[in-house]
């Protein structure tokens, strides 16, 4: 095994850049595959073998893997978070879930409508927005080396995992807009009877809190192996 020269490394980078891949996860893997293969061959075979690798890793093939990677990452985030959410409804976490519902119900009955919105909705949403910024920062830090290598391709190189994870974090914001803001725009919010408002508040807040907690736990698990 030999160490590749700077010009050889640049040739490899150039040939990978041509494939216009944006997923950091895939770029890292392809780059390592190319180098692992080329390091085992003598210098005189470099050009021929690089061409052979390029014929295997074609533009179309790379984009096919990238699209499958997107699907698999989405599936992985969904299943991880769902398994965490399910665990909140099984012993011993069930005690925590019941306590959370109890506290929320007490708070809703004690607080005015304005305070309910501030404490039960805005706090978790502010937490989620802060968490999103933190994940973006962490992901950029973790992917810096790969972005430096392939960043001048004209394509915004980024972590697919981080992108999908952030999309999942924003779900409660869409939920908030769809179920609370939109009915207000059409004046439908007045149709909800007063006695139902407290129950709806507890339910909505419970969903947002569980989503926030499970997202954090999913991130803790995935941050060890993914670019988040």
């Amino acid at each position: 095994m030999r160490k590749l020269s700077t010009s050889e490394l640049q040739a490899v980078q150039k040939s990978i850049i041509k494939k216009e891949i944006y997923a950091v996860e895939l770029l890292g893997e392809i780059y390592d595959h190319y180098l692992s293969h080329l390091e085992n061959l003598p210098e005189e075979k470099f050009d021929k073998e690089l061409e052979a690798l390029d014929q295997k890793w074609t533009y179309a093939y790379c984009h096919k893997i990238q699209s499958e990677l997107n699907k698999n990452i989405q599936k992985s985030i969904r299943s991880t978070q769902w398994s965490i959410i399910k665990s909140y409804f099984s012993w011993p976490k069930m005690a925590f879930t019941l306590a959370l519902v109890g506290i929320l119900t007490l708070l809703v009955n004690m607080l005015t409508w304005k305070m309910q919105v501030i404490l039960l909705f805005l706090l978790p949403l502010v937490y989620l927005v802060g968490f999103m910024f933190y994940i973006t920062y962490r992901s950029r830090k973790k992917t810096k080396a790969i972005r430096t290598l392939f960043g001048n391709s004209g394509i915004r190189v980024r972590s697919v995992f981080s992108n999908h994870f952030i999309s999942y974090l924003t779900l409660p914001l869409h939920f908030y807009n769809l179920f609370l803001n939109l009915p207000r725009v059409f004046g439908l919010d007045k149709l909800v009877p007063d006695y139902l408002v407290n129950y709806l508040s507890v339910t909505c807040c419970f969903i947002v809190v569980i989503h926030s907690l499970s997202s954090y736990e999913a991130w803790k698990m995935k941050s060890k192996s993914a670019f988040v």
Partner: protein
Amino acid sequence: MSNNNLIKGSLQTIILKLLEENDKMYGYEITQKVKELTAGEIKITEGALYPALHKLEAEGLLTTEIQQVDNRVRKYYSLTKSGKKEVSSKLAELQAFVENMQRIINPGLNPDLKF
């Protein structure tokens, strides 16, 4: 001899078996190991390997670890707890398939014969 379509069907089993024996491996290492074990008869194409690895990871059968190696990142794959459980059932499935194929190819052979 090696036919890509035949290999594709058993690729997940091959990956799981190799990872059971080798603790953790990266993509290129898997292709080389298969080549070495089969004396070059079976060559896993990158076209099939990486999507299979990503799929197994998404299914929770594999976990990954990113390591910095000579100024580049290397993604190591290893079996999760459920991945370890899955190895034996996948192997049994493949074994049964090979036995049934053998019965079809050689109908005269003893049906109770195990390979």
